[in-house]
């Protein structure tokens, strides 16, 4: 039998089982019925558990008096201190728009300072490592390089190949109207080397590696492993961050180089469909893309890799507590990494324009 509620003027008669199921059916009605004048007749209540006691508590708080509750349920209700109202803390007022802007700006500035400080710290540590290279954890560096570089080859191949194929197709069709499909190789080669290969590789690195750094270091932070390192006198910067920075800064250009070759191969393959043999495409690219294009591309990849690793490690070290904080760190490492790429790429474009490279 479930619970029932009957109203008889100011009298509320409860009967049946006051458990989760029973209370769910009558709570709304009880809430509406209860007032300062009500008396609640609970003598027909056959069962009452903690949830039932909570219902009675609610009625008492609304001013009702409980009568006839069986002896064996009374301690349950007494346990809840029914005369003491619930302590519901005030929710703080939402801040005004001006204050919100101020807080946002202050937060942004704090974060920027944090990043600059971190870069400074990393630079100092790198300098120390340069003077005493034996202090670098070579094994860890190679392990990170393998997982950030070698393990990324399949996905880089796929993306770079598709990039080459798509670029070649999209440009070959309009170029053909001028009989200039031969120069598609130059176009694709140059854009891959200077711009697209470094950028696409870096986006992949941000998603794969930057986020992984943040999650890994973040979990270590949550488990107090970072604290353990610090108290053992091992600088987390040297122990965790530098191997990652070095590994990614070195693998990013290598991956970029690989992406360039795969992309060019994809483009050349498409051009064979336009009656341009592979060897012709190759010699076109060789004649058109010069060493400075190539080096600026690799230089960009180096800077991108360094930036992604820095952001990943920094977000990891600044992880708050709990499982959600680790997820938030990984996400922000990914997003900030990509924002950094776009900004840095823009700055490179301006700089190269004025330098005439």
């Amino acid at each position, binding site marked *: 039998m479930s619970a029932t509620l009957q109203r008889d003027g100011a009298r509320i008669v409860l009967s049946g089982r006051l*458990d*989760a*199921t029973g*209370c*769910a*059916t009558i*709570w*709304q009605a009880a*809430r509406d019925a209860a007032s300062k004048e009500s008396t609640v007749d609970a003598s027909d209540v056959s069962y009452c*558990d*903690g*949830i039932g*006691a*909570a*219902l009675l*508590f*609610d009625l008492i708080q609304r001013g009702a008096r409980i009568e006839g509750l069986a002896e064996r349920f009374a*301690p*349950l209700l007494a*346990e*809840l*201190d029914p005369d*003491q109202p*619930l*302590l*519901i*803390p005030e929710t703080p007022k939402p801040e005004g728009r001006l204050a919100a802007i101020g807080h946002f700006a202050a937060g942004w500035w704090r974060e920027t300072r944090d990043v600059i400080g971190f870069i400074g710290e990393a630079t100092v540590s790198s300098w120390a490592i340069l003077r005493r290279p034996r202090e670098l954890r070579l094994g860890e560096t190679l392990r990170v390089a393998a997982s950030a570089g070698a393990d990324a080859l399949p996905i880089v191949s796929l993306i770079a190949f598709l990039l080459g194929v798509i670029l070649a197709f999209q440009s070959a069709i309009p170029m053909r109207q001028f009989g200039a499909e031969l120069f598609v190789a130059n176009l694709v080669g140059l854009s891959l080397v200077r711009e697209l290969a470094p950028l696409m590789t870096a986006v992949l690195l941000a998603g794969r590696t930057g986020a992984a750094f943040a999650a890994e270091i973040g979990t270590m932070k949550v488990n107090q492993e970072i604290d353990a390192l610090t108290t053992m006198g091992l600088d987390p910067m040297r122990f965790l961050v530098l191997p990652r920075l070095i590994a990614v800064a070195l693998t990013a250009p290598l991956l970029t180089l690989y992406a360039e070759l795969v992309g060019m191969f994809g483009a050349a393959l498409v051009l064979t469909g336009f009656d341009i043999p592979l060897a012709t495409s190759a010699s076109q690219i060789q004649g058109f893309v010069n060493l400075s294009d190539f080096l600026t591309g690799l230089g960009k990849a180096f800077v991108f890799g360094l930036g992604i690793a820095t952001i990943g490690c920094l977000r990891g070290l600044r992880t*708050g*507590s*709990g*499982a*959600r*904080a680790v997820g938030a760190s990984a996400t922000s490492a990914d997003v900030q990494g990509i924002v950094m790429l776009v900004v840095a790429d823009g700055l490179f474009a301006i700089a190269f324009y004025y330098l005439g490279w």
Partner: protein
Amino acid sequence: MSEPIIRVENLTCAYGDNVVLRDVSFEVARGEVLTVLGGSGCGKSTLLKHLIGLEHPTAGQVWLNGRELTATGGEARRDILASFGVAYQAGALFGSMSVLENVMLPLAEHTQLDAPAREIVARLKLREVGLEQYADYAPANLSGGMQKRAAIARALALDPAILFLDEPSAGLDPITSSELDALILRLARALHLTFVVVTHELASIFAIADRGLMLDKQEQGIIAVGKPADLRDHHPDPRVTRFFRRGEETV
């Protein structure tokens, strides 16, 4: 005598070829506080995992409230799972929710109560464990002892008949730990709850336990059952008395 609320029959627990518990049988009476004791690696946690259905036994049965947990599936199993509460060693509060939301979660998932009713029930559970004013805190901002009490409040949310506690006093100072013992005793008396507490904290064993059930690694099973004081003073097995005398060699 009434039907025991927990009945374990010939339970064998193994991970692959590694047998942890062999042919274990025991019963727990309604309203009893049973502590499961034993040194590290003796299978305390394994036993607990089998009692609450996290692991499936290699052989044997677990009966909770007259229903066989090991053989039940689907909706009925969900019912059994809602009939007991578990407070894990580190609290296992969901970090993305406030303490209050943690306690409200089982109510939202297993009952038809509306939101205001759920909130009242949850706040009262927190009042029972003495955390009413911390309802809106994030679990991470509570101390270890508070997290354990919050975990107990969450385990109590659905008014279970049985409460399983895994190492409730681990990592707590003696005062907080004894406060927690007092809370367990008060809940056992007031709500007529059955407690199964996995612990090796001697002080709390003597404070709360009606009976202790001692497991042993070599024996792969139970080596002693009884009142803690009897186990300490009168048990013939030196492994048992040694445990209670903190590992001093008995002469």
